[in-house]
């Protein structure tokens, strides 16, 4: 009997320790710490935060998660949130977080001069930190680049059975279709999506890397991917019979998305957070930020990574990215109606 009680107490003590240790961790966040919720994955942010701490002495505490999960958590935590900054990888999520009262407006000359205005929220709620271009990738064996022109043209029947696309559930697809709705109107967008779906060579892929593998294997001839996935593949396999094609160069330009961040409304360390945000937009950080993942720096004064710059320069779609956010649910509705899985 006595032994049982003792064991029980021991167990209780174990849980109590676990519980309090997690509570104290949250309370430990003081002014020398910036706490970040991030849907950008750990391996892409950790090296940057380490460098920031080295240069400034300000510690960065971070928690990764899915964008929509973290927004929900921030909403529920309200004033008591431990997060000083929310970082995510899609303009739609940034825009939505803005509408949910999660960010506070920041006006900083440093940010204004480092980051072009179409990559920032008009109200100063969030700032883009890297640019992700989504464009056409094609098989050099089976496609002549002269045949390619725009995203819309991939709806043409000549690509029947030759097209691979990423699933409509992925946020990058949603933003791309949102930009098409903005640039060409809902009716045209509907026709484009219908055409894409009927040209598909396979069920839409879960990953951009799967699309490129499918093109290499001959399952399809063209696809639409974010350029950094292509960059990674080419780095590993320089002989791959694949090339990027810059879409819509004679019209709206290549669809770009951003990964970005903003200071939370109830941040307990606004000063530190702005400092981190400004530092992330600086030349030094931008070259690490972008080259870690072969993305384009948002700060236009910085040269891209070697592989990235070898693809040449291109015209970007200058649509303000908060529009992509606003149109995202319209884009999903449209895609689901047209049976784009």
């Amino acid at each position: 009997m006595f032994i049982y009680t003792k064991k029980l107490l021991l167990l209780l003590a174990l849980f109590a320790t676990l519980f309090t240790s997690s509570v104290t961790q949250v309370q430990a966040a003081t002014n020398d710490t910036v706490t970040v919720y991030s849907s950008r994955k750990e391996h892409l942010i950790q090296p940057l935060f380490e460098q920031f701490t080295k240069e400034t002495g300000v510690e960065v505490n971070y928690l990764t998660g899915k964008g929509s999960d973290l927004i929900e958590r921030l909403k529920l935590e309200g004033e008591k949130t431990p997060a000083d900054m929310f970082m995510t990888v899609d303009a739609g999520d940034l825009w939505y977080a803005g509408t949910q009262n999660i960010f506070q407006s920041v006006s900083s000359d440093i940010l204004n001069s480092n980051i072009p205005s179409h990559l920032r929220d008009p109200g100063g709620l969030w700032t883009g930190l890297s640019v992700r271009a989504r464009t056409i990738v094609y098989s050099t064996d089976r496609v002549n680049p002269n045949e390619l022109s725009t995203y819309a043209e991939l709806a043409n029947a000549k690509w029947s059975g030759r097209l691979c696309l990423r699933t409509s559930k992925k946020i990058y697809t949603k933003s791309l279709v949102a930009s098409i709705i903005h640039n060409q109107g809902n009716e045209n967008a509907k026709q484009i999506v219908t055409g894409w779906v009927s040209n598909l060579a396979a069920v839409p892929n879960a990953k951009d890397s799967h699309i490129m593998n499918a093109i290499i294997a001959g399952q399809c001839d063209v696809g639409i991917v974010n350029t950094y996935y292509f960059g990674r593949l080419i780095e590993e396999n320089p002989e791959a019979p694949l090339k990027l094609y810059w879409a819509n160069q004679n019209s709206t330009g290549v669809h770009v998305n951003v990964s970005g961040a903003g200071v939370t409304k109830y941040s307990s360390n606004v000063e530190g957070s702005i400092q981190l945000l400004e530092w992330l937009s600086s030349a030094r950080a931008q070259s690490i930020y972008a080259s870690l993942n072969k993305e384009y720096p948002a700060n236009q004064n910085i040269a891209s990574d070697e592989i990235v710059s070898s693809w040449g320069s291109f015209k970007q779609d200058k649509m303000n990215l908060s529009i992509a956010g606003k149109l995202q649910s319209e884009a999903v509705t449209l895609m689901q109606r047209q049976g784009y899985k």
Partner: protein
Amino acid sequence: MFQKTITRSNIWVSLLALIVALPMFVVASSWLIPISDLWLHFAQTLLPDLVISTLILLTGVAIGVSILGSVLAYLVVMVEFPGRRWLEWALFLPFAVPAYVMAFVYLGVFDYSGYAQVIIRELTGLPGFDIRSGHWAIILTFVLVFYPYVYMMARASFKCQKIQMIEAGKMLGANPFRVFFRISMPLARPAVAAGVLVTLMETLADFGVVSLFNYSTFTTAIYSAWGDFRSIEVAAQLASLLVLVAFFLIYFEKKARGKAKYYSAEVTDIKPYEAKGVTGWLVFLFVFSVFMLAFAMPILQIIVWSFSVFEEEWGFKYIDYFSSTVTLTLSAAILTVIVAAVLALPRDRVKNSKSVQILIRLSTLGYALPGSVMAVGLLYLVQNISNVSLHFGGSSINHILFGSIALLLFAYVSRFIAIAYNSANASSDQIKPVYGHSAKLLGASRFRLVKDVYLPMMAPGILAGGLLVAVDVMKELPATYLLRPFGWDTLAVRVYELSAEGLFERASVPALIMVMFGALLMFIFHRLDSNKI
């Protein structure tokens, strides 16, 4: 006096079951708000397709796991063939492999661009095909991942079947097939049904495999409501339908089982049939190829991938990932098992025991909820408690509980109680009421009865359940990802973060460590299991 104590224990049990079932109630309470237009949109677009594909998937998986699981169990228990001894436990190992890891390995190997298809195309000149279209490939994947549930249950049942019945069948000249279909299978039916039930709940709640295959199930609509249309309410409404489906599945399983109990407590380890010569090797070949496909091949593949990126991926951070995983896994397993044991303790039948049973059943439905819905349900629960507290002049507790180990452990208990409960309940079912009666006659208190009689008798079931929960917690991703405290990244989180970026080779490193830890747990499970016999 005694009667009173038992009624009180019923109250405590009901309260505990109610607490465990809380997330389900929060999710169901989403129906209190008005129906959104989103339902109309889903009804016109996603729902017709996904109801059909969910049904096809569930049917296919149910047929697949019940055949594969019970045939394997029968062979291993009733037939002596080369390699039987190690295969008997090796067949448990696929438990240790997370379903999403299995899915990305299979896609990497067998899809159009996978090397298996490339080689076959080059050798035979056949056209390639998209294994993600249609239903069979994803059904096969789920079957290979989840058959161990049925295998485990059926194997235990075959072992406990009255050997005399089988001997009688043999004496009447029935061949192994006839014995299988006419005696063993009918006797094992409840066990197989229990295994299928768990499998179906796992399949319903899965998001990882279906999203890699881009296959539509109910979870597709749940994630679309939340991720695409930012409506947590509709997501919760859809999720509560899943719980309802699970409830009916359990109900039908209970109905089908009736009051039948076919078990005998005596277990003999005599193999009635000996497969000699070619037959023996054919049996071996079949069992071995299942083991190869469901475990050895995927593991070899992730070992190969791990090697190519090991230097890049490996680092001190793995000490953190590993210790978080082990701590969470073990503490969640211990906690779940304690709750399950209390719920499963034998109780005398009193008036309200029916409603207690229903409450307990309700508390085990969390298994059918997608992990992230369960997690958000918990956040809302905390929020509601805070609101009540604020209303009475107290303060919000959100910031204390969000991101605390306590809430995460609660989520694990609520989600995995079904596994621990089923296992503990199976052993408590075998305790004959006579023990309670004699204890009563001897004037023993309920406390002593539980401590000295019930718990020791239930111990094997409780332990086995605990180990299975531990493996499940180790593999769990969505709730962990949403609720974990700062710095508590687990191996599963690492696997997800890397594979979400398409870095499957790097994701193999944490996946491999996970599988090794899971295999260790399964090994302990097996040792306990064989000591029992």
